[in-house]
């Protein structure tokens, strides 16, 4: 949690646009820090979360699905579709459906522009998918940075072609419709409904019972319980 707050603070306009961060000395210090982290962190066990994999009974897993069984925990009664890819540090509850071509636990999109170069930040977190979640085909769920988890709450439905960014916490009974892109580190409450082809900014928080209509762009926090229109957000 502290690591995520640190990342968000670093990304915020107050820090990232300040004169201190724009100086070449500070930029090169940041650059070397991130580069050392990228080399050292994956080699230590410090952020390694799922140490041993397990597979519950009654699962229907397609033979073409690629799952890192050593580092993935899967509950009972799950259904995993064709060509699905599940990377390490993923915890999946019971009765979860995962569609074809879905990628879970892929690298997040955390990049820094420092002294004229783009420096990626290696992700070491994982993904937790709670019970009775349905994930449609061609969806992408990224893992979180450092030791944190991207979470999807119970009974939620993630439809086709949805991107769930790194470090997102989705509550219970949430529906995310087709083609929606949810930015990183968002907090989404319970019983939220997000329409088709929406895009949300990163670090956003949506309260309980919020309904967001199709094709809207959300750049500010929405408190519960309201139904917003595209012109409001």
């Amino acid at each position, binding site marked *: 949690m502290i690591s995520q707050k640190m990342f968000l603070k670093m990304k915020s306009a107050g820090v990232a646009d300040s004169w201190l961060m724009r100086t070449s000395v500070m930029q090169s210090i940041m650059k070397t820090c991130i580069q050392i982290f990228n080399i050292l962190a994956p080699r230590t066990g410090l952020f390694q979360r799922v140490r041993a994999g397990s597979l519950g009974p009654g699962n229907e897993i397609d033979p073409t699905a690629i799952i890192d069984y050593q580092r993935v925990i899967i509950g009972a009664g799950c259904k995993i579709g064709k060509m699905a*890819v599940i990377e390490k540090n993923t915890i999946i509850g019971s009765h979860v459906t995962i569609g074809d071509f879905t*990628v879970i636990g892929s690298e997040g999109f955390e990049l820094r522009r420092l002294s004229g*170069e783009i420096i990626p930040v290696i992700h070491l977190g994982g993904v937790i998918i709670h019970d009775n979640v349905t994930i449609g085909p061609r969806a992408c769920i990224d893992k979180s940075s450092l030791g944190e988890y991207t979470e999807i709450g119970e009974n939620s439905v993630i439809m086709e072609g949805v*991107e769930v960014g790194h470090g997102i916490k989705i509550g219970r009974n949430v529906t995310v419709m087709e083609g929606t892109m949810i930015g990183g580190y968002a907090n989404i409450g319970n019983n939220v409904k997000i329409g088709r*082809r929406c*895009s949300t*900014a990163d670090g956003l928080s949506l309260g309980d019972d919020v309904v967001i209509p199709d094709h809207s762009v959300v750049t500010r926090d929405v408190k519960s319980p309201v139904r917003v229109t595209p012109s409001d957000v």
Partner: protein
Amino acid sequence: MKLSDAFPETTSIVRDGIFLSAGTLYSHHPSQIVYLTRKNDIPKILQNPSISCVIITPDLVSGIPENIGIATAEDPRHAFFILQSALSHDPQFALPPFANRISQSAKIHPSAKIAPNSVAVGKDVIIEKNVVIHEQSIFDEGTIVRSNSIIGDDQYLSGALLGASGIRCSGGVHLHRETDIHANTRINRAFFKGYTEIGEQTKIDNLDAVGQGTIIGKRCLICAGVTIGELVRIGDDIWIGPNVTVESQVSVGNNVYITLGSTVRYDIEDDKVVKDNFAIDRKRFRKVMRGM
């Protein structure tokens, strides 16, 4: 190639000319042959100096400049693709095939499907699960392609066939140094001789689609769900937000910031912020935001 050699029925040639490559009104191949169907497109010929021959309907001949060779056809598009189906097998008009060059230090997952020829994979390239790589794909060192992505796809061809059989893509895909292509992304290969290029250190997020012949500059960050059309030119140091659509044949300058959910329909100059269809100066945008 001479226009009269390409079209043996001499009746359709109005003025002979020489062409060295095929292309469209928006591409810049040397001495290219293009087709034209609408009167409104004639000014674009004057703007594009690399056009040397056109295929056109008989009623539009009068508007074409004198230095350009002209062939006429009732359906120029159909005639052009019939010609292209022959040219795409000609080594002069297509990238030459070569034996696969795959570096020892490249990490390729066994489930990745790589074409049997014309793929070059450089040092320290990582290719993850279920990636499909078609012919004429070049990966420079340090490139990463993540799960379920498709590189060098030519599926859009079915729409352009128009009865021309045996048509092939003449170009390829070139991913420069340290590019990062995330999961479920598709990059089409160039239709004409040339490459769909992704510049150095450009990072492309999940679920994106890049059209044929598009050239993306260096150090760009392209977020999830972005659809980039055909023959788009994108400059350096760009940020493109989630769910953005960039229409075909648009050119975007350097240091542009395209906010989430926008649609880019017109050319964008350097240092602009694009918010839906409006473009404003980036420095002014920052000043306004600080003043609030």
